[in-house]
């Protein structure tokens, strides 16, 4: 039970998010109305994705140093879970955009940057699938993963801030703190990020263990 505490913490934090995400007090803003609660569910997907991708990057760099295939496996599975969360973030964002910006997809730099980022990570998976030798595959994809991460930061973290964007905190718009002056949303948002990240790590952990069992079986 000792090593499972973080899984329980993830479950508890997400349930906390669901309960207080629906019934907690939120700022009253025109156009957004109650949809501001999507912050707890849509935005957290992106935060969790960036955290998982960062972990993937760390494992990729570690793989280049130690050449251990388990390290490479961790980098891959973290990137897959991160990609999954990004897909959920994209779809939920699209629904939200329909009802606040009036369309499922706008040419917002953040949306297009995200689309490019996801294509970059898709290329990472394609690259992995196209090399047979495990060590060669690991080295190539680890180097590519470093580039992919840098591109992700540029496309979703830097470029939208430099140009005009509909997203808060971008293109001169006030950030999250500008809407949440008394911090009532922060006490739900930050635990939500941690909770969803832990759930993401748990799913990744299951997939890594499955792959290891498969290796053992085939060895």
């Amino acid at each position, binding site marked *: 039970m000792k090593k499972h505490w973080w899984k329980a913490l993830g479950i508890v934090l997400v349930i906390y998010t669901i309960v207080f995400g629906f019934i907690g007090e939120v700022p009253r*803003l025109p156009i957004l109305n109650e949809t501001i609660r999507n912050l707890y569910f849509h935005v957290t997907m992106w935060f969790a994705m960036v955290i998982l991708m960062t972990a993937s990057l760390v494992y990729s760099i570690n793989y280049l140093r130690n050449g251990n295939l388990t390290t490479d496996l961790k980098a891959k599975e973290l990137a897959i879970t991160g990609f999954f969360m990004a897909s959920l973030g994209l779809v939920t964002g699209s629904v939200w955009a329909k009802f606040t910006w009036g369309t499922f997809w706008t040419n917002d730099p953040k949306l297009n940057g995200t689309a490019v980022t996801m294509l970059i990570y898709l290329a990472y998976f394609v690259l992995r699938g196209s090399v047979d030798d495990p060590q060669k595959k690991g080295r190539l994809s680890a180097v590519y993963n470093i580039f992919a991460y840098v591109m992700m930061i540029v496309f979703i973290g830097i470029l939208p801030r430099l140009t005009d964007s509909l997203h808060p905190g971008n293109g001169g718009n006030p950030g999250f703190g500008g809407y949440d002056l008394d911090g009532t949303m922060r006490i739900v948002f930050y635990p939500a990020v941690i909770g969803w990240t832990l759930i993401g790590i748990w799913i990744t952990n299951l997939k890594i263990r499955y792959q290891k069992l498969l290796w053992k079986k085939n060895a």
Partner: protein
Amino acid sequence: MLKMSKYWLGFCAMLFSGMLAAQSKMPEVEMADVMRANGKIYVVVAVVCVLFIGIALYLISIDRKLSKLEKES
């Protein structure tokens, strides 16, 4: 005389900013107050909680199955 006008200016500024603040409060933003007032939002919260607990239990069962396999091999 100069001092007097300074106070007067300050007073006017205060009054004006007060008016502005009052004006910005005017539009009443529509929120789901009624939904919360009759208590039915808790039903939605309960449903989503059940959903998520179901997913969590599923994850736990997969975790256990994997642990069992890991012990066997």
